């Protein structure tokens, strides 16, 4: 019994470690995809022609007027479902992205990355 219990605890630990590892891996892949596909419009940094922000970041700054962060990487409310809606349907001048550009797996990974990046932003890192 005790032996079984140990095995169960070890198994749980192993699953937990695997999940954390998978999550870190998802977030890393999500960051790579975010940097490639989202950041050119929604990243930090200055925009063109003397503009203080990139267009997607600036548009969200104007839209939310400080109620939500302008930077997607600081948002805590963007789960995979929300990301999928914006990616697949587009919004305003952001066109939809096709499943060959951003796969379902990419959406999950980006969500994992935003969870991580917004947590880091909240903690001041």
């Amino acid at each position, binding site marked *: 019994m005790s032996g079984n219990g140990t095995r169960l605890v070890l198994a749980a630990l192993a699953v937990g470690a695997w999940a954390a590892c998978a999550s870190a891996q998802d977030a890393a892949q999500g960051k790579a995809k975010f940097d490639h596909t989202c950041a*050119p419009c929604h990243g930090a940094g200055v925009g063109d022609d003397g503009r203080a922000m990139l267009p997607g970041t600036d548009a969200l700054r104007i839209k939310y007027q400080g109620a939500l962060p302008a930077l997607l990487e600081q948002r805590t409310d963007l789960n995979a479902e929300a990301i999928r809606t914006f990616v697949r349907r*587009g919004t305003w001048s952001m066109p939809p992205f096709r499943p*060959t550009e951003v796969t379902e797996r990419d959406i999950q990974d980006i969500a994992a990355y935003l969870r991580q990046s917004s947590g880091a932003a909240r903690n001041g890192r």
Partner: protein
Amino acid sequence: MAILPPGVSAESFASAVREFQDAIGREWVFTSDDDLYSYRDHFSYIKDQPNELIPSAAVGPDTTEQVQAIVRTANKYKIPLYAISTGKNFAYGGPSPNVRGSVTVDLKRMNRILVCDDKRHFALVEPGVSYIDLYRHIQANKLNVWVDTPDPGWGSLIGNAMDHGIGYTMGYYRDHFGAHTGMEVVLPNGEVMRTGMGAMPASQSWQEYRHGYGPDPCGLFGQGNFGIVTKMGFRLMPAPEHWRNGLVTVPKRQDLIPLIEAVNYLCDLSMCGEPWYGSPLMPLMGNTEFREAALGFNESAMDAQAASAGLHSWQVELQFYGSERTTLANWEYAQELVARKVPGARFTNGESLKTPLTREQIANTTGPYPTNMRRNITQGVPGLGIWYMTGRTERNPNAWNETHIGLFSLIARSGEGVLKAQKDFADVARRLEMPSLFPNALQTPVNWYQFAFLMGNGFGLGGGDTSPAGKLKATAKLREVLQENAKLGYGDYRAPPILQDDVADQYSFNDFVLRRFTEQLKDAVDPNGIISPGRAGVWPAPFRSMRGGMRS
């Protein structure tokens, strides 16, 4: 909202979809409304209308062999295909096909950079490679070449070249189709063809001599529908060591003529990069007296008021790529040449910077003079910063530019040509009661193509009415503009599918012999008309009755 390809039964279509799935995998064949939503033109003037150009399905092959299989199946079931690369051709239709119900062949997954040679200065890429992708590859591998990028960098090198897109560095590289170095094409019968030296199996110089031997059919694939390009080479500019710019202004309206002569000379000797023309008189448009003179093209009054305001009539920003010494020599020679031709011309040194520029240098807007030149694209750095023009900004916080269509007409590359086009465009806008977005008398051309001027038709459409009816009305007006332009000898270079028949109609010499010739070829090589029927007004026999269908 399931739709079928024209003339294809539901049973046949289902069989074709199964064959597509067998060829490329179920997960890369898209038929649901949700998936197909992203294959619509986000900026469509006919969104949600019964004739909106929506595909019946989309397929995402990963290899040339898979593209061949798709083409063979399409032939079997007589299903029209429409190929896209990264699908970002916004203002020109985005990913939407010419024929509603086509199957979109989405080449985005074919995103391999096959060769990028910084000693021989070329790249060979697949259609899914964007300008941003190639730029990052060059940076990551520290290669000594630049990308010549269009404004938004998310587009495909191949897709952009296929629609005769442009960039902003030296003349040779700005014409993206002109800078291609050969291609691989899946023909309408499913065979694979390589052009130029690529036609020689053991060739070591596919990307160096694009003509090969005999007739070169490459032109048929640009804005054409003779095959699906699966690989294409591009000449890349060697990274210069230095960049310099300078401003030239000339006092009088008629001085535009010798100014353009001088700049053409410099450009055609490859002594400068893209020149950016403009008018320092724009601020005077707020002055009633000047505005009246400008609207009436009263040249002497405009000159007098410009002189009293201490302003010159025209300006051109020149930019030079090379070494510190050669860029200085070219700038000094440019000043000497213009001064010889235009009394009273003034010159202002711009910046003189070692390349590659730092991020801070690219972002810097505090040069020696106010500049219109967008720094990142002149430095071959692709991005999406320009997208602010379509979206929410401080000046436009509650609407987006959903009527985003590009129409640019070819005008003569001379000062006389510009001054004439200004008046002609103003007349057309007046006759058709379309308020021009620009003060026509101050409008200047873009020199995207080294050997040609394009000038934009900028109209405020329908008083900003973005309702479905308003958009249809605006589209009808645009058709009238294209007809009027053609009467005056101005042809457009690019258009979205809803206007491609109208632009093709402008090119009517000798009872449309060019189109008749092209369609004769099309019928011979694509008897079922499956490759992008209607693209650029080229309609194969099985679909020819659809010509002009978007006008109804």
